[in-house]
């Protein structure tokens, strides 16, 4: 199972705890993680990436295994530690700003 950690606002919106577990078929990519996440929690649609373009929203960032994956292609496989559930895929809302 893939572990996804959401920021507080989105946890409140989806009514979930710190992490959610998702069954994502391999190869696991950020795009597929978000597909499954939005399918399980439809209220998150449009909050992490745009509906039309599927681009990451400008101030949302993705981290995993100490790396910033925000600017990596969304269809590139995530690190093995994320794919096998050892490490969470982090969706981060605010790293700067008020």
């Amino acid at each position, binding site marked *: 199972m893939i572990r996804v950690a959401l920021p507080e*606002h989105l946890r409140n*919106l989806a009514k979930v705890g710190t992490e959610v577990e998702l069954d994502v078929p391999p190869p696991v990519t950020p795009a597929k993680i978000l597909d499954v996440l939005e399918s399980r929690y439809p*209220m998150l*649609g449009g909050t992490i990436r745009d*509906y039309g373009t599927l681009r990451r*929203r400008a*101030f*949302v960032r993705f981290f995993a295994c100490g790396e910033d994956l925000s600017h990596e292609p969304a269809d590139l496989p995530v690190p093995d530690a994320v794919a096998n559930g050892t490490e969470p895929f982090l969706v981060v809302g605010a790293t700067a*700003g008020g």
Partner: protein
Amino acid sequence: MSGVRVLVGTRKGAFTLTSDGKRKKWDVSGPHFAGWELYHVKGSPVDPDRLYASQSSGWFGQLIQRSNDGGKTWEPVGNKFAYDGIPGTHQWYDGTPHPWEFKRVWHLEPSLTDPDTVYAGVEDAALFKTTDGGQSWEELSGLRGHGSGPKWAPGAGGMCLHTILIDPSNHDRMYIAISAAGAFRTDDGGATWKPINQGLRSQYIPDPNAEVGHCVHRIAMHPSKPNTLFMQKHWDVMRSDDAGDSWHEVSGNLPTDFGFPIDVHAHEPETIYVVPIKSDSEHYVPDGKLRVYRSRSGGNEWEALTKGLPQQDCYVNVLRDAMAVDSLDSCGIYFGTTGGQVYASADSGDSWAPIVRDLPAVLSVEVQTLA
């Protein structure tokens, strides 16, 4: 026992303020959606327990929330606002064409007859409609397709559609206003629109008969006189008696005619309220005094209402959607400030008292009169 419920949208959440018909003691509930911007919260006129809220964030975009129990509980509904067809371009600040980009919902206007039907005014300016309680939204693209769309330009606050008025005597007739394009009217339920800006005079627009380009801040209407409209423009308070076909200025003796909200007394169609703001470069009340101005003659002759409002060292603004009236007798007037105060008057504005003083900056105020 009658009562009121005031719905307050702020920079950091929504609040509901409730009182009985005396409007002296208040219960404050919130923040709902803590940390999010609530541009607007409004209830259905036919089902007061049905509320809609526009919840947005720079990080996470736009959400629409719906309540079926007067705001005790909420559920997110549809938040997909897709422009109809190829969106095209409007004018950017530098005069160049700029693609239409959805940013947020500024205003939600529930239907006068159906709790599942709601209109949404959005930035970049467009009008959307739901008929399934907010689950899905469809653009009424005849507005942007009217032909002047490529000439529309944003004001300093963005290119927002912020005012939606439905004629209670003819539901096919609606009015909307856009900063900074102007006012528009439909007579066929939103299929087609015409600009209604004749008589508006805007500084720096060389053509005195310019069809669009006016920064309309707010329009108000009394339900018993739907052909009479009152407008707070960027500068100037205006009036129309022919459903917007022509406008004339009624700023009269106001200390400044810049401002944002305008509203009409619930029982006196010629009694109107504005909050003059010093200028477009100094967005606070003049002279450090928070004064609501009331005209009982439909404009031109204005009196300052000050009792209970701070008359020194006050430098707040009152935004365009942050004033509302209830329909009790005597009419209650409410407004919220960028300083986080919500003031209420239970006597048509003669005297005021704060309901709350220290909310986040207030973006919108609506009131429901409850049976």
